[in-house]
């Protein structure tokens, strides 16, 4: 048996449902890092400027 041949069983969807609540929180975090221009974070341009180099080099529009 090679290292890439383990076969897991499916996680039942009801077990996943509660965890899906984490998705909006994680997407909000990604939004604040990648796309906030002050409207959501209410920090003016501070957050934008702090994430500036990351935004450019992760490829999202910056300014």
């Amino acid at each position, binding site marked *: 048996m090679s290292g890439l041949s383990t076969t*897991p069983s499916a996680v039942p969807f009801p077990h996943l449902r509660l965890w899906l609540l984490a998705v909006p929180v994680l997407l909000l975090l*990604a939004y604040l890092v990648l796309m906030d221009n002050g409207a959501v974070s209410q920090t003016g*341009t501070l957050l934008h*400027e*702090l994430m500036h180099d990351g935004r450019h*080099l992760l*490829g999202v529009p910056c*300014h």
Partner: protein
Amino acid sequence: MVRTLVVRGLLLGLLAGLIAGGFAFAVGEPQVDAAIALEEAAAPAPAAADGHGHSHGAEAEVGRPVQKAGLFLATGLYGLAVGGVFALVFAGLRGRVEPRSDGCLALAAAGTAFVAVILVPFLKYPANPPAVGDPATINSRTALYVVMVLVGLAAVAIAVATARHVHAGAWPRWVAVAAAFLVPVVAAWLLLPTVDEVPDGFPATLLWEFRLASLGTQFVFWTVFGALFGWACDRAARSAAAPMSAAAPS
């Protein structure tokens, strides 16, 4: 089970984000610095009094050394967020789709995510260095970028649905899958407005090198993350299947 996957996704996403940040720091920061130097030579420090102005010089709200440290903060938090979402998608996919092994599924899902969420938007709205892009259009450009991300995800969903429902020979099936992916992507590429805000005289070499560094940063993130996540899942599955050998000192 899901909790283990989510924790794994968050931590390995953070780690892969920091590694991608190291790549961006080494390969991309010289281009960022060069672009800022050009920007300031062209228009010496416009006042940011209206709150929408933007400057990178000594009088900027956040100085360059802090912005370079912020690079790692940004890529790390990006990895954390993306890793968590990836883990939940992975939890929903495993045992339901091919490939069946965790390691192969993690690599296939990370590669697919890179194409859908990074490569498709990049081909329409490529990354731009400082000095390229009008601050007044940032909201519309961000919205267009998000639309291309959604197009990439939708195209992958259509391609996967096609793969599951078309039962033909291998070649017709893969042609159908490729067409199901490419048709929405090409249609969006043709229909959405073009953004070209590169200033006259901006060095083409610098633009190309910056864009390559930016795409490379995302490529490093997704390959490192996919490999780490798959490796960790396979390792956990192996030690669960063979507790005796896992307990033995290595």
